[in-house]
Every structure is written in structure tokens, then in C-alpha cells.
């Protein structure tokens, strides 16, 4: 392919090997024009950005420096939004200019592979919502709450700065590189860029990480539903509701997605209200009052059935419901926080910020805060989405910045809102809810006594206060409701009742929050099991080819059973753990998620190096180094720390020794059986940490080697291999961001003038 030398049309001046159709207007803004637009600073533009910077600066000042007795929640909103805007407008443009270098003259997979089914051009604003709904779930609603133990400031700084420099960068780069490769998955890219060893390590690590992530998400649900008849009833009802929706869509009215989602939503609300009534009756309380182990087993059996049932029956309809709720709930949370503007009494740095024996999460601030908050700041799991559906739907290359970088900023905002909701409740209540029963004793009296004995500034709670809060939210007890979800639910109920309905509505809001968190998590559990099953099938298929046939029932069932057994075992381990479960396992979730991020960033670094962007490789190297240092340090603490509360093996040794000494109770384990459980659990958790960290180090090393090799090749003038799909000329134009720039508007007008038969039809709506 060559360039037409006689052409004067602006979009033919770039030597990129693309021959556009001369009958069409330019398919992208002239780079010179776009540049000029970026670099022209009118007084109005300067004033706007100065105002944003000033407001953000004041907000950060209020949060970080002033931090009076109380801090108003509105400062969290301003600090985050202003920082996001600046990061998006300036930093992501640096990445675009020097690293990704999108070319709108080039067709996206949705254009050159268009099939009307998987590869479909989608309006950028619609795709933004779609991508956001796929990446955001319960994760950003849980991590920040657990990390609030250390005070609000460390978590806030990490969520906001982390997303701008790390999380959003990862999402953007993976999305862009996958789009250039026809929507290839992270695993396939790792294999191509890092070779067999790096690729295999990445695949195995991804599979294990998915197991851990699914297990710990399931643990959050189990903790939220344990001994809660109301919660069990209303969340349980989502299954028949989804089945009904599935049948409705398949047989009664195919394709009426919005209609059935509305029906499902109404039924869901009825289930929440009905749950209160059912839990109020004697038989209801008896039938739906389940202990955590029973719920965990229920979830495991459900997980297997859901993963082998056809998608249309359960997964697809529940996904619609979950997406529907996600958009609504997150908008509601943001509006409520902005309208109510709760006062936050939590200190910027709590008494536990400088200690490593906090009751909610054990370990020092560095590195454990950074692994506890994964989703919202840097989440490796997103790399699987950004290299999945989204790149197949993109309309234009330059839109990747808005979708990838912007979508992640939005998730970070959700994390900030969740943090605000959780820290707006009483601090004593926070610790009573989030410390394991082994510490609080499980009753309101012992919990109040324990919390008051912590000696926290300004904290003094009474048993009556704990009992009354439980009554208000329609629960029998709120002591030691660990896992983050119940705390967020109480926080949300606390904020929402000031907005709508007063105290009488608190129970509804509480269970509404539990319901949507459970819905998000169950969707992630089902989808995660299914994806993991296919990964396993493909991996085994390399040795036993029959397994590659996805429709082969025995293979599918066996692989599903293996995956469910794997996460089910970790889940049961967490539920029965005498040490409290969530506080020993949650670090593993964060470490796993961030190690996946390190893997994704490694792949991105190797690709960026092969494209010759050495001068700006620090954009990837910075978050990669940080993620690697944090997760490897955290893993080493978990493996080698001599402190039993932190190190898995230290704990294992302590309990093993106690058993050998013939003790019948040790620490929080009150029986010999419990002690044996601790010995078993810590051994498994320890070895999982070892495996993760070893696999990740292999991937990082292979990526560094690939980068060095790319650099050597470049200095010697040897071309680096390029795994991108061949460039195809685009035949469409669409703006890059939410609001079209003047140059984009001009170009859109030019396209409008084109006769309809020459023009490609529009994507979705504009």
C-alpha cells in the first residue's frame, strides 16, 4: 500500500500506509488542527481550568491540611472530580500523544470486522456506559470501607492519585492495544508479546487470580446474608425473578430488554419490601434464618448450576437487572451524597494508621492499604474487560481515551462515594461492625465494651445504640457484620433516610443496598466461573484436544466443577476461619487483583517498547513498578513476616506449636478443631501467595526482557515484530469525546452533507 502523491486532501498527508476513499471527507481530524485546538488557550479556557484547579486545590487543602473536628463530604466530591478532570484533560492527553498515538484514519475492529453481532460500532456515550457497567461492581464498594480503618486520608489519596497515574492508564492502554489487535484477549497478547513462558505464567496466574477474586466476592455476600432472614429472602428472590425474565425474553416477547428489565426492577423492589414482611413472621424468620456455612454451601451449589444452565435462562436476564441497578444506584449514591453532604467525624489518620495490628485489616499502611483498595484505584481485572467486549464495539481509535481512561475515573468516583458513605457513620459503630466476632464477642454489650476499650478519640458507644441501629435497619444484630457490604448499607441508609423517608425508611435502604451489592457480586461470580471454565477448558485442550470443544458436555461439566470446587473451597475456608475470614483473605484478593494489573501493565510495556516509545515508557513503568513493589512486598510480608497476625506461615507455626504443646484453645480459636482449621487455612493461603508472586515475577521478568530486546533492536535498526492487525482505511467519522470540538463539529457537518448512499450508516444514535 502506498500514499497517493498527487492528493492535497488533508487526511492524505500522513504517511501511515492507509489509502482513504477519495470520495469521502476526512475520517479523522487533521493532527495539526487537533494540536492547534489543544494548544490555543483562550481567556475563557484559562479561566475555566484555573477555576477547576483552584477548587480542587481548596478541596485537597480542606481534606489534607485543615481537617477540623469534622470534614464535610462535599470536599471529597470536589477534590476527586477536579483531580479527575485535570488528569483526563492533561495526563491522558500526554499518553495519547506520546504512547498510544491513535489514528482515526484507521478502521477499528468494529468497522473492518463488522458482523452485526460481536463487532458492532457503538456510539461512544453508549459504549462509555456499557464499559463502565462491565468494570464497576461490588469491588469499589468494599475495599475503601475496609481501609477506612486507617482514617479517610490515606484511602482518599490512593484512590484519586492511583487512578490518574495507574488504574486509568492500565485500562486505557489495554483497551487501545487490544483494539489494534482485533479485540484479542490479555492472555493472547501476553503469549504473543512475552513468549511461551511469560504467556503461560500469565494464563495460569489469571486463572488462579479469578478463583480467588470470585471466592472473596462470594464471601462478602455470605457475610452480608448470614443470620439475616430479610436479606436471604430478598436476595434469594432474585433467582426466580431472573428465571422469569429469561423465559419472558426467550418465549413471550423476545428482544424487549427494557420492558423486562422494568418488570424485573418492580419485582425486585417488591422482593425487598416483601422480605421485611416475611422476616417479621415467625415462620419466615425460622425458614430464612441461615448460618453462614449453609449459605456458603447454597452459593456453591447455585454457582455450579448457574454456570452450566444456558445463558438465556439465568445469566443474561440477571445481567440486565444488574446493569439497570448499577446505573441507578450509582447515580443515586452520588446525588444523595451531594444533596445531604454528611459531616465526617473520622480523623484523617486514625490510631491504626501507624500500627500493624488493626482489628479490621491487619498489616501496616504500606503496603496493605494499597492492596486493600484495588478496585477504584488500580484493578487488574479490568484488563480482562478492556481486552474483551469493549474493543470490539469501538467506533473510532481516538475514543479509547474517553472510554478506557474516562471509564476508570468514573469507577474511582464510585469508590470515593462508597468511602464517604462508610465514614459518615459513627466510628464506634464502624469498628463494632467490621471487627471479627472473636474480638467483639458477638453481643451488643461485649461489642460496646470492646470498642470503648480501644481508646479511640471521641468514640464512646452504648449497647443500646448498637441495638437500636440494628432495629432501624431491620436486622437482629449488626455486631461483626464484616465484609464491607453491611457497613456501606448502613452508611447508605443513614444518608438516604435524610434524603427520602426518614428513619422509617432505613430498613428499606439498608436491604436495598445489600440487594444491589449481592446482585453485582452474583453476576460477577457466575460470569467469572464461566470465563474461568473456558480458560481451563482451553488450557487442558492443549493436551487433550477433546476439551477444546466447548459444546462437549462432560468436559464443560468437569471444568465447571473444578472451578466451582476451587473457589468454593476458598470460600468455605473464609467462612469457617476462626480468625475472622475477611480480614485474613481480603489482602489476598487485593494482592491477586494488583498482580493481575502488574501482568497487564507488563504486557503493555512490552508492546509500547516494540512500538518504539522508549522516551515515554515511564508512563507504563511508573504504575508497573508501583504495583510490583506493593504486591511483592505485601506477598513477602504475608509469606515471611514473623508477626502471626500478618504472616500466614508465622501464624501457621504458632498454631501448630500450640497444638503440639497439647493446648485446646489458642488466640481466637476456642477448640482444637478450630486450631487445626487455622493450621490448614494458613498453609493454603501461604502457598497461594507464593504461587501468585512467583508467577507474577516470571511475567514481569519476561516483559522486562522483551522491553530490553525491543530497545536493542531499535538501536541496531532491526524492526521489532508487530502483532497489530493490518491497517484498513476507515470510512466513517465520529468525535472522540463527550462534547465534539469545533473542528470535529465542522467535520461532522461535512459528513452530513454526503449523500446517504455513499455514507456508512451511523452507529446507534448520536
Amino acid at each position, binding site marked *: 500500500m502506498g500514499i497517493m502523491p498527487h492528493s492535497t486532501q488533508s487526511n492524505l498527508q500522513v504517511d501511515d500506509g492507509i489509502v482513504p476513499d477519495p470520495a469521502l471527507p476526512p475520517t479523522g481530524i487533521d493532527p495539526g488542527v487537533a494540536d492547534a485546538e489543544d494548544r490555543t488557550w483562550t481567556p475563557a479556557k484559562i479561566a475555566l481550568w484555573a477555576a477547576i484547579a483552584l477548587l480542587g486545590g481548596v478541596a485537597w487543602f480542606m481534606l489534607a491540611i485543615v481537617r477540623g473536628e469534622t470534614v464535610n463530604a462535599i470536599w471529597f466530591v470536589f477534590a476527586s472530580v477536579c483531580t479527575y478532570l485535570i488528569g483526563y484533560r492533561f495526563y491522558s492527553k500526554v499518553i495519547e500523544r506520546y504512547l498510544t498515538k491513535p489514528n482515526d484514519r484507521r478502521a477499528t475492529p468494529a468497522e473492518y470486522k*463488522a*458482523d*452485526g*453481532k*460481536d463487532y*458492532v460500532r*457503538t*456510539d461512544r*456515550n*453508549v459504549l462509555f*456506559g*456499557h464499559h463502565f*457497567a*462491565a*468494570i*464497576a*461492581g*461490588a*469491588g469499589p464498594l468494599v475495599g475503601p470501607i475496609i481501609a477506612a480503618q486507617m482514617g479517610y486520608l490515606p484511602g482518599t489519596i490512593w484512590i484519586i492519585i492511583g487512578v490518574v497515574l495507574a488504574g486509568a492508564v492500565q485500562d486505557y492502554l489495554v483497551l487501545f492495544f487490544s483494539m489494534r489487535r482485533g479485540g484479542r484477549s490479555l492472555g493472547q497478547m501476553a503469549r504473543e508479546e512475552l513468549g511461551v513462558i511469560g504467556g503461560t505464567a500469565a494464563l495460569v496466574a489469571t486463572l488462579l487470580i479469578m478463583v480467588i*477474586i470470585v471466592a472473596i*466476592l462470594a464471601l462478602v455476600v455470605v457475610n452480608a446474608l448470614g443470620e439475616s432472614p430479610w436479606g436471604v429472602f430478598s436476595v434469594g428472590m432474585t433467582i426466580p425473578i431472573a428465571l422469569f425474565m429469561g423465559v419472558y*425474553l*426467550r418465549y413471550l416477547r*423476545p*428482544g*424487549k*430488554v*427494557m420492558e423486562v428489565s422494568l418488570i424485573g426492577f418492580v419485582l425486585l423492589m417488591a422482593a425487598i419490601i416483601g422480605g421485611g414482611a416475611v422476616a417479621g413472621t415467625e415462620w419466615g424468620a425460622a425458614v430464612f434464618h441461615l448460618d453462614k456455612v449453609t449459605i456458603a454451601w447454597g452459593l456453591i451449589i447455585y454457582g455450579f448450576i448457574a454456570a452450566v444452565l*444456558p*445463558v*438465556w435462562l439465568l*445469566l*443474561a436476564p440477571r*445481567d*440486565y437487572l444488574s*446493569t*439497570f441497578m448499577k*446505573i441507578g444506584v450509582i447515580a443515586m449514591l452520588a446525588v444523595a451524597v451531594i444533596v445531604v453532604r454528611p459531616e465526617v467525624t473520622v480523623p484523617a489518620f486514625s490510631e491504626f494508621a501507624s500500627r500493624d495490628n488493626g482489628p479490621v485489616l491487619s498489616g501496616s499502611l504500606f503496603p496493605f492499604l494499597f492492596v486493600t483498595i484495588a*478496585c477504584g484505584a488500580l*484493578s487488574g*481485572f*479490568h484488563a*480482562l*474487560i478492556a481486552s*474483551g467486549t469493549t474493543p470490539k464495539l469501538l467506533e473510532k481509535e481516538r475514543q479509547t481515551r474517553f472510554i478506557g481512561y474516562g471509564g476508570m475515573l468514573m469507577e474511582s468516583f464510585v469508590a470515593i462515594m462508597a468511602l464517604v458513605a462508610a465514614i459518615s457513620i459513627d466510628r464506634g459503630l464502624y469498628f463494632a461492625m467490621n471487627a471479627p466476632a472473636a474480638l467483639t464477642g458477638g453481643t451488643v454489650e461485649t461489642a460496646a465494651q470492646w470498642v470503648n476499650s480501644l481508646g479511640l478519640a471521641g468514640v464512646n458507644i452504648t449497647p443500646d445504640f448498637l441495638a437500636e441501629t440494628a432495629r432501624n435497619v431491620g436486622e437482629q444484630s449488626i455486631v461483626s457484620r464484616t465484609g464491607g457490604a453491611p457497613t456501606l448499607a448502613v452508611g447508605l441508609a443513614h444518608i438516604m433516610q435524610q434524603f427520602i423517608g426518614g428513619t422509617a425508611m432505613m430498613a428499606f435502604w439498608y436491604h436495598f443496598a445489600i440487594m444491589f451489592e449481592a446482585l453485582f*457480586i452474583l*453476576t*460477577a461470580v457466575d*460470569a*467469572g466461573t*464461566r*470465563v474461568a471454565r*473456558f480458560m481451563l477448558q482451553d488450557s487442558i485442550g492443549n493436551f487433550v484436544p477433546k476439551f477444546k470443544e466447548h*459444546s462437549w458436555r462432560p468436559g464443560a461439566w468437569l471444568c465447571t466443577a473444578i472451578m466451582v470446587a476451587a473457589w468454593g473451597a476458598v470460600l468455605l475456608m473464609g467462612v469457617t476461619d476462626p480468625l475472622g475470614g475477611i480480614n485474613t483473605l481480603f489482602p489476598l484478593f487485593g494482592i491477586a*487483583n494488583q498482580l493481575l494489573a502488574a501482568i497487564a501493565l507488563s504486557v503493555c510495556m512490552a508492546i509500547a517498547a516494540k512500538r518504539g516509545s522508549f522516551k515515554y515508557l515511564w508512563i507504563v513503568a511508573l504504575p508497573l513498578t508501583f504495583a510490583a513493589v506493593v504486591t511483592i512486598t505485601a506477598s513477602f510480608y504475608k509469606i515471611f513476616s514473623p508477626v502471626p497476625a500478618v504472616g500466614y506461615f508465622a501464624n501457621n507455626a504458632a498454631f501448630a506449636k500450640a497444638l503440639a504443646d497439647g493446648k485446646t484453645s489458642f488466640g481466637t480459636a476456642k477448640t482444637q478443631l478450630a486450631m487445626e482449621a487455622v493450621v490448614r487455612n494458613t498453609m493454603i493461603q501461604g502457598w497461594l501467595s507464593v504461587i501468585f508472586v512467583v508467577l507474577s515475577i516470571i511475567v514481569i521478568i519476561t516483559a522486562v526482557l522483551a522491553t530490553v530486546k525491543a530497545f536493542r533492536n531499535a538501536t541496531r535498526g532491526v524492526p521489532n515484530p508487530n502483532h497489530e492487525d493490518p491497517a484498513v482505511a476507515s470510512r466513517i467519522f465520529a468525535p472522540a469525546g463527550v462534547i465534539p470540538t469545533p473542528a470535529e463539529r465542522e467535520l461532522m457537518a461535512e459528513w452530513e452533507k454526503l449523500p446517504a448512499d455513499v455514507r*456508512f*450508516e451511523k*452507529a*446507534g*444514535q448520536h
Partner: protein
Amino acid sequence: MFGSKRPGSTDAAADMNAVIDGFRGFARYLGGVMGADAYTKYLEHHAAAGQGIPPLTEREFWRDHTDRQDSNPQSRCC
């Protein structure tokens, strides 16, 4: 898209129309995010590609749509 005044309508009616249009726009956006317009898009693609064979009916399309997801699962994040 948002409430263009129709000839002869009063201001109140125009405002009402604007609200209705706004609501419709939002519903359409939400539908897009959830993938409710997949069949419309398939028809558009089919018409543009001009394969010479009749397109799938709505029922057939949605059946195929979910059945393909059986062997092509999409991740949902945490």
C-alpha cells in the same frame, strides 16, 4: 433531539414535549447501554452489507444472541 418547538403549540405543550423527548432520549441511552438495540443494529448491518439472504427474525436473532454467549462468556468485574 431535546424539545424542538412544534408549530402552533403553546409554551406549556412545548415544555411537556421537551420533558417527554428528554425522557425518551434517556430511555434510549439506557437501552443502548444494556444492549436492547442489538437487533436494530444487526438489521442495519445486514442492510448495509447486502448479503442477499433475508435477515434473521427478531426471535431467531435473540435466540442466537444468547446461545452464542453460552460459548463466549463475557467477564463482569468486581
